[in-house]
């Protein structure tokens, strides 16, 4: 499933996607150069599992853009591993999704059939 062009995401920034029109972002990606890190937009906070994470459309990162931050209760996550490094989700992590940068400089999401259906 096509998401966007690489150039649509400024280097170091994040972007959210709602490819199935569910009304809120299903996934988001963080771009670091030509590296793409794609995560399900679902905070693992116990009691809040699945909560949407940005504070505003596409805003998934802290001010220095070094960590993913959940705007629900401030949990910080490592951009590359998805592991929580601070806050209420300690010991938990984000779910990685299969998004690839292909030769046409476009990002495509390959849903895991039967698992990632909403």
């Amino acid at each position, binding site marked *: 499933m096509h998401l966007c062009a690489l150039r649509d995401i400024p280097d170091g920034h994040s972007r959210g996607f709602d490819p199935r029109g569910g009304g809120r972002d299903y996934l988001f990606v963080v771009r670091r150069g030509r590296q793409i890190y794609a995560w399900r937009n679902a905070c693992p906070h116990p009691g809040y599992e699945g909560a949407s994470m940005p504070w505003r459309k596409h805003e998934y990162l802290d001010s220095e853009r070094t960590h993913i931050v959940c*705007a629900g209760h401030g949990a910080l996550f490592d951009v590359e591993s998805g592991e929580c490094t601070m*806050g209420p989700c300690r010991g938990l992590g984000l779910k990685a999704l299969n998004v690839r940068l292909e030769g046409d400089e476009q990002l495509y999401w390959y849903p895991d059939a039967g698992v990632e259906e909403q």
Partner: protein
Amino acid sequence: MNILGPDGLVFGVDNVAACNQYLTDYGLIPRDVSAQGGRFEGLDGTYVEIRRADDPSLPPALPTGSTLRKTIYGVADAATLEQIAEELGRDREVKRLDDGSIETLDDMGFALGFQVSIRRPLEAADEIVNCPGARQNRGVNVIGAAVDKDIVPVTLSHVVYFVPDQHKAEAFYVERLGFRVADRFTNLGPFLRPAGTLDHHTLFMVHTPPHMQGVEHFTFHMANPSDLLQAGKRFQDKGYESFWGPGRHIFGSNWFWYFNSPMGVHVEYDADMDLHDDSWEPRACESSEDASQIFNFTLVDNWMPGGDPH
């Protein structure tokens, strides 16, 4: 003790610019806004203050990294302030700050301030709806819907803490500061109000493991449910992320709409909260979806049927 309710909340944040913009778009009145932070007021002057996380004037952060650095209560008069200083001074340090306020910690480690309240008297227009048979209606030729209505949150309503021990936390506020329990979710914690207000709650506690200690949300009262819905719609249209609602709670009866925020806490709009006095008998039940709300809607884009087949 004649504590009126929260006058202000002070946050130490990572992204000052984002928080400044967020609270302005939420509808509060910005004061003294800079790269160092700002103060954002409701109609009566109650406020949220944003500071940099490394601002040395702030009380230390909780070990969990929670961004709330201080909850400042407004009290009726200087005598109440002295009463609190004496009571809490019996077993903890109570600092006297240059602005005349006092500062200390509650039994969970949340920093508290107390000051003679800065809130201004409110003069709000009643929301009058047209109801067949009602004694008072909005009236003939008086228009209800106002697309461009100026909507400002009225007053800081309540804050909700994640606490590692709801019973210990409740005991501190009830026994030391004279708060009353309005109602209780047995598995989460109590809804509390201080003696100087009739509001159902100005403080609610959610029992969590210690590493989650922090803030679930804070909220300002909106004038009425119509303003809540219209303000929330505007906020979501600006790209802010709805978390829950709009809906209506059962305990407290308040309408609600919660959003994510760059402070790393939820921020609510609430309206039409119940009032109680000391004759009220607290209710108690376990929390659940159906115990928590009467209804919960999700905003969708404006839409109309038709096209032009007529």
